[in-house]
């Protein structure tokens, strides 16, 4: 039998052809490889959320192998001696086992919790970027809506996960959640009773939360994240204005290789930071809290950071109870407003915001170029107002700790929060608005008069004036292009290039680097001493 010779040189081409004959992937693959992505640090914030979500899925799957979602009462018999012999739920006992009796279980638990915090933080920071740069405008309203929903679904994922270990802190949180549901007019008791299968806490809530936390909510998150990314892919990323960048093109790097490599590296960086956090900083040490008992709580029990704003709103709410005197009488408890109505408003308003803004501006155009926050002072100021509202609420969520650490009266903290919630946002609006206008004005000044050089010149008649380096030719004011205006001589190439090498330069660049779009700046032929004449 003759042995067939394998030609190694043509093998990849041949194999490629065989695959292509069957699957027909070459053309789509080419267009994916060639897809251009614009580059800016702020475009990577959403990726932090995506990557921490992947870490969440991986660590979470590990945790499910050991966690027992049951409220069945057991007596703890694990290695953590201080709790031995204590009656507790199987959920709490298995969480303790995960921390003490599963080798490496604690680092996984802590990675899971830390990545959840990073996930929510990244979502918020990413949303702020989208908001302040106007990236949600047509045609990207749908992705804005999906993003806002992702925050609330992430919130639910966080809350259900936080409740699972059934420790004293999470049980208290669950009880507050039941009180929130109870407060809903008409259906409150029915809703609560249906979710808890009877009176709080019942014996089934942990297994219901478990299936929601490990299947239903993640499935929803995966589905929405997929649509979110697919839309980014389809609609192509927005870009900052700049040389060569228009509303109808994308300027950047092709998907492969540099963009992909950067993403891979960034994923590793996010995972690495989460691992370091999980190792170095203890989070949710449930063994110190003890099992949940309805009559036990400790002071300074704060929820995870992204829930604190609701805790704060609950604390600040005055005790305004509405009694309805029909029949036996009905009640709308005060907790209903800050925990049901407020989140309802906070969900709906952002969803509608792109449409409201477009309508007010009578704007039906497609926008692929981002706006600098200073160029849209109303929106930026509105955003600052929202952020300050959120911050006042979040700080109020920890007002007992602040009162304790700084020796302030607790009631004074509550009142400060109540008043602050009303007056800080308008102040933030006004201040931000003025700052935006100031920055705008400075941009125009530099475009008209040039960059400050730091050189003071004295004229023969004794007057001093500062020398400006004009940006345009013949002292003509340049039009504003919606992008960074150079404000320092360094940005114009006045500073020499950085040389690599510790003792002596490894390589000397051939010439001063020239940023694209700017003509090279020639050094002045000679420096003239400024002489003073006495």
């Amino acid at each position: 039998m003759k042995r067939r010779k394998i030609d190694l040189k043509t093998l990849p081409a041949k194999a490629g052809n065989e695959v292509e004959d069957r699957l027909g992937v070459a053309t789509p693959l080419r267009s994916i490889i060639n897809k251009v992505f614009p580059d800016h640090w702020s475009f990577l914030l959403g990726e932090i959320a995506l990557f921490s979500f992947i870490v969440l899925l991986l660590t979470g799957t590990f945790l499910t192998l050991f966690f027992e979602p049951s409220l069945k009462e057991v007596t703890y018999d694990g290695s953590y001696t201080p709790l031995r012999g204590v009656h507790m739920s199987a959920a709490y006992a298995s969480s303790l086992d995960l921390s003490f009796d599963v080798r490496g279980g604690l680092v996984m638990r802590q990675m899971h919790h830390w990545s959840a915090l990073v996930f929510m933080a990244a979502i918020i920071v990413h949303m702020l970027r989208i908001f302040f740069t106007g990236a949600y405008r047509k045609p990207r309203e749908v992705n804005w809506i999906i993003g806002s929903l992702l925050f609330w679904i992430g919130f639910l994922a966080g809350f259900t996960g936080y409740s699972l270990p059934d420790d004293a802190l999470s049980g208290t949180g669950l009880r507050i959640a039941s009180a929130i549901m109870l407060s809903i007019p008409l259906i409150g008791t029915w809703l609560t009773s249906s979710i808890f299968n009877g009176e709080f806490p019942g014996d089934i809530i942990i297994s219901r939360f478990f299936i929601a936390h490990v299947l239903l909510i993640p499935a929803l998150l995966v589905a929405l994240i997929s649509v979110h990314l697919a839309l980014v892919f389809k609609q192509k990323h927005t870009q900052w204005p700049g040389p060569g960048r228009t509303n109808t093109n994308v300027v950047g790097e092709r998907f492969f290789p540099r963009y992909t490599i950067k993403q891979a590296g960034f994923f590793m960086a996010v995972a690495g930071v989460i691992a370091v956090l999980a190792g170095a900083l203890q989070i949710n040490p449930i063994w110190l809290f003890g099992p949940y008992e309805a009559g036990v709580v400790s002071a300074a029990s704060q929820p995870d950071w992204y829930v604190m704003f609701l805790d704060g709103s609950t604390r600040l709410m005055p005790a305004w109870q509405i009694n309805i005197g029909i029949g036996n009488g009905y009640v709308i408890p005060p907790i209903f407003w800050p925990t049901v109505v407020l989140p309802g408003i906070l969900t709906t308003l952002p969803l509608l915001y792109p449409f409201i803004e477009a309508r007010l501006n009578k704007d039906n155009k497609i926008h692929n170029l981002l706006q600098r926050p200073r160029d849209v002072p109303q929106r930026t100021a509105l955003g600052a107002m929202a952020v300050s509202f959120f911050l006042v609420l979040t700080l109020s969520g920890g007002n007992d700790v602040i009162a304790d650490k700084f020796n302030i009266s607790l009631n004074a903290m509550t009142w400060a929060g109540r008043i602050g919630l009303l007056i800080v946002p308008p102040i933030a609006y006004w201040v931000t608005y003025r700052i935006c206008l100031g920055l705008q004005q400075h941009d125009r000044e530099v475009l008209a008069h040039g960059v400050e050089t730091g050189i003071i010149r004295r004229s023969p008649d004794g007057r001093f004036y500062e020398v400006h380096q004009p940006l345009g030719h013949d002292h003509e004011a340049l039009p504003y292009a919606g992008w960074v205006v150079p404000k320092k001589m360094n940005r114009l190439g006045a500073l020499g290039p950085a040389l690599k090498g510790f003792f002596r330069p490894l390589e000397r660049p051939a010439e001063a680097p020239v940023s694209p779009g700017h003509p090279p700046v020639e050094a002045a032929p000679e420096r003239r001493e400024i002489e003073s004449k006495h």
Partner: protein
Amino acid sequence: MTVQTTGSNGNGHGSSVPEEIDYDDPRTTRFEKVKAAARQDGVDIVHYEPQFPERGSRLEKRMSRSVAFMFLLVGLFGTAFVVLYIVWPWRYEQGDVMMKYYTPLLGATLGLALLFLAFAILTWGKKLLPKEVSIQDRHDGGAPEGDRRAVGQTLAYMVEELGVKRRPLLGLAAAAGLAPVAVVVAAPLVGGLIKNPHADNQMFTTGWSPIKEPNGGTRLVRLTRDDGTPIRPADVSAGGQMTVFPGIPEGATNAHADSPTLLIHLRPDDAAVARANNVKGTGHDKFDRSDFMYGDYIAYSKICTHAGCPASLYEQQTNRLLCPCHQSQFLITDNAKPVFGPASRSLPQLPLDVDEEGYFVARSDYQATVGPDFWERP
């Protein structure tokens, strides 16, 4: 060796038909083929500049050495992780110091391995690969008018063909037939989950309601500690307080999450004020509490009427109870009425008595509703 191209004549990148390129022509470089392929996707590689003008320069060598070094560090920390995972003592022993470093060491080695991997990849991509600027056209605004019309007409035609307009009966019958199917899908979910909150009057009863004896009489429930032992008045000193649970099976567990109660032994002058206020009532509820106290002892539900946390921080000086969750404050000497914070309702008061053996009992269940408020609370 900077490659500068202007694309297809510099205007309308890629919009013109890309020129054919002979992929077998040995005279064109591979990069030219890559550029031709990119143009087929409307992408112009307008700037492609190697990081190192000279191949194999000192700077390039140094850069690749540092990437290689970082990869070696990844291996080092990865190995350290595995070794520590296996050999480091990890089991919990009280007072053991070594075991405390197990999790931090795992996190640090794993994190450093991942971070060096990140730096290695990023340095490779950002410092060794050529810089490029590519321009791609967007094709915004969806399909052209013709395509839109085509799809619209096709859909409209299909709807017409179904003929629901001409045959209204079909539409009605389909709607009538499908509506119950939707209910069929929802029924098991809703029907299985729904639970009457007022079965057994559960919203208004706690573990303190007197126990029905088999012989028809009732027995009052004793106040007990969490281990089930009953309490005599002498067990709580003046100014002191104690969390008590109903003396029934599982009375101290979460099965009776509405029952934990705070028993307080007031100082005589405070007790007099509390008793007087008990007689006066709070003004906003209609319960007669005039005989709820036993001597100087008073008992209130520990479950906050705001959100259900245990209102358990008792401030002896001011006789206030503080709920640590949302800082509602209740004045013990005045029917535990809310004096600050978001709570709007007094803590329910438990009517106290002492049985013939000298132990505290609850004379009846709470009269006010225990726990967070809800719509149909009368």
